[in-house]
């Protein structure tokens, strides 16, 4: 019985009179052993908790799915009537399990999952259920959290359920220093703001990252009943280059011809990346009127802009500038310029058939290879 205390007493006694280095080593050994044991326990507990959570969810999900099928998705009365007039049978969801927070969160996630996959009346009914079960209060509570990830989660839930959030709550977050929070707020604002969904374009001081642009583009292009503004206003007046670049992509997507004059003005900007984006935009919109201007400015442009100009000639395919393309193809020293000139020549084939045949017959081995490359339908780029 007394073995352990005796052992520890003897160890402590010996340690007290050991050299300093041994004492330090002993302390560190103790720390290392404790940390290792704690790490193993944490792995054990972490995995056990995760396993239990998964098991509970595996039991709960079929229950939620069944309740949703019976009361909403397969409820024929709801299909034929105006969704807003008939209340969903929310009583079925008043079960003891849903008093627990994790279960309510699972219900929210499931509702969002179904709402993302159905549209029309069913979607509205799922939203009604979300409100009737007071799950919106859960989301709003998270919105007030001090943790940024909770706020992001709340905004994602409210946006998915098309719940309004006051502009005063969201707008300050659209310029937050936290990247995730800023992006989530911008997405929510575009989706939920009833008056001016694009207002933050005026206020944005932080750059719109490529990642944010992808999500915004998706939201703008998939949200129903969104009033698409004339993007020329930001192309002309915004001092945020990333906003201008993003607006150019939206102009192409919506084929917004009314914005073309504003895009043309960008050809004179000093930022050559933005200029290249503007030429790309004009090319994708097939604006033939700018070809002459672009040919005049071609020689003074950096490589990225020159490539975009050559691409534009191919996209527009007006057949007016095949000689210019021929000249670039034959005389340019840069491989990429020659390749893009050749590609655009092929796209202008209707007007340059004889020229292309002549070039294939007379070009150098490398140029001939470039032409064959561009003519081969198996090669995309």
């Amino acid at each position, binding site marked *: 019985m007394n073995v352990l205390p005796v052992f520890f007493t003897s160890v402590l006694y010996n340690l007290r009179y*050991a*050299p300093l*280095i*041994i004492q330090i*080593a*002993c302390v*560190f*050994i103790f720390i*290392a*052993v404790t*940390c*290792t044991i704690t*790490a*193993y326990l*944490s*792995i054990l507990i*972490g*995995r056990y908790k*995760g396993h239990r959570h998964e098991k509970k969810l595996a039991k709960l999900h079929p229950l939620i799915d069944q309740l949703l099928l019976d009361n909403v998705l397969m409820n024929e009365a709801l299909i034929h009537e105006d969704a807003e007039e008939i209340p969903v049978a929310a009583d079925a969801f008043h079960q003891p399990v849903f008093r627990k927070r994790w279960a309510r969160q699972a219900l929210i996630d499931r509702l969002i999952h179904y709402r993302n996959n159905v549209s029309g009346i069913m979607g509205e009914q799922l939203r009604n259920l979300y409100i009737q079960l007071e799950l919106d209060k859960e989301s709003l509570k998270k919105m007030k959290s001090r943790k940024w*990830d909770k706020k*992001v*989660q709340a905004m*994602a839930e409210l946006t998915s359920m098309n719940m309004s959030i006051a502009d005063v709550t969201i707008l300050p977050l659209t310029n937050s220093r936290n*990247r*995730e929070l800023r992006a*989530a707020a911008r997405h929510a604002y575009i989706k939920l703001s009833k008056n001016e969904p694009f207002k933050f374009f005026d206020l944005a001081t*932080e*750059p719109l*990252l*490529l*990642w944010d*642009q*992808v*999500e915004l*583009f*998706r939201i703008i292009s998939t949200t129903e009943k969104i009033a698409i503004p004339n993007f020329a206003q930001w192309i002309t007046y915004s001092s945020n280059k990333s906003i201008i670049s993003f607006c150019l*992509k939206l102009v192409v*997507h919506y084929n917004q011809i009314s914005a073309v004059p504003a895009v043309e003005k960008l050809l004179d900007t000093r930022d050559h990346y933005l200029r290249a984006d503007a030429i790309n935009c004009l090319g994708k919109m097939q604006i033939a009127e700018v070809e002459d201007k672009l040919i005049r400015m071609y020689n003074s442009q950096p490589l990225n802009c020159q490539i975009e100009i050559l691409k534009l000639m191919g996209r527009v395919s007006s057949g007016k500038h095949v000689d210019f393309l021929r000249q670039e193809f034959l005389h340019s020293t840069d*491989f*990429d310029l020659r*390749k893009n000139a050749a590609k655009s020549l092929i796209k202008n084939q209707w007007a340059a058939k004889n020229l292309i045949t002549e070039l294939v017959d007379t070009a150098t081995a*490398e140029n001939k*290879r*470039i032409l*064959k*490359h*561009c003519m*081969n339908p*198996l*090669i*995309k*780029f």
Partner: protein
Amino acid sequence: MSFWQTIGRIYESSVFVYGTVLLFIYAMLAVFSMIAVRAYARKDKLGQGNMLNSSPLAPGITVLAPAYNEGLTIIYNVRSLLTLNYPKYEIIIVNDGSTDNSLEQLITEFELVQVDFAYNVKIKTQPVRKIFKSTNPAYAQLMIIDKVNGKSKADAVNAGINAASYNYFVCTDVDCILDKNTLLELIKPVMQEGTKRVIATGATLRIANSCEFDQGVMTRMRPPRQLLPRFQEVEYIRAFVLGKMGWSLLNCVPNVSGGLGLFDKEVAIRSGGYDHSSFGEDMELMTRMCRYAHDNKINYAIRYIPKTLCWTEAPESVKIFNRQRTRWSRGLAQLMFSHFGMFLNPRYGKMGLIIFPYNFFFELLAPLVEVTGIIYYIVMICLGQINWPTAVMLLVFVYTYSVMITTIAILWDQLTFRYYRTWKEVAYLCMTPFMEFFLYHPLIVLFSLRGYYYFLTGKKSTWGNMQRRGFRQNVPGAKTAAV
């Protein structure tokens, strides 16, 4: 005090300082990696990863995979690459003059025909013989380059870079199996960066030896059953999850693994591409890209993600393992020698002041310090000048510390991703660090010294022959079978 005693004291003090700094760095990396891994996990939990999959704004990516005599697994591996989730990508397989039937297999399997491709030599390589594209629209994104053997992976990848259409390329080995969301995950840090230009992104690699695969897709993840690959699994977890994630927080990632990495094509080309004479071509390229970025005042970043996106076959025999590690250490010695001008050079910022000194002192010199330490120990024992309680206590300290650091790496990995299905598998892995110190680490030291010797004597060596066994496949009717 005699001359030798003075030398002995100086040596002891130097090793003491060296060891203390190294232990401090590991402790620091453990903390930094925890911060970085947790930050990644919080963002990842928001689950926006797949939205890029349907976006027209996704940047294009070229996947480059060089192959030399990989006939055993090449079809499965190309199929695996074809299953990647990404809206805009191409796959370039570079057949580096294989002497087996790899090319014939590819031509038949993927209905390839030779095309006149405008191949532009931006980086000099051995001549390209033929370029093939598939006539089957299902394989439209696949391209095969057949070239003369360049006796190095670097030469093959450079040929792929020359033919790449997109601004980013992912470099992998054809024997690696990638997660289907690899491209989505690797491009994310590039798109999420505001002020810096991300020139490379890496992700965690793991050992594939005991995992199960179906048509080139990983279906069941397991730690390797054999001891040697399992040691390597633990080493990979420590190196990627703890080491590289820790360095990533400081924007000081020393290397993006050759097994999987995404690179900015323009910077890679302007830096001269992979060095075909290097034995550690991945680290060498990374160093040159950083050097180029510094020289041209590019505000760059190198990012790492802790998620496992790639599984590679690890050597199971000591002979093959020896060959691999000898090559790696030789590459490190080459790198240090050829870029020594960056060492403690403030012009190269963190690269010159942190990464290079760390690699020099704690990667390159570590095996030498260890071996001289052991020799010193033996001499002291022979002279009867060892203070045994102190010596044993310090040995126990180093042992427990090394076990702790590896266990922490496993902990971050487990808490964040909970890889492996069963408790038994995790326990298996957790036991490995206890043996690593005695069985695995001495091998690493020995093979490193061999690599340095080869570097100093200039012994000739070639790349490629890893003697692969192929991955386990799920075959209907049979539990598992080797390819």
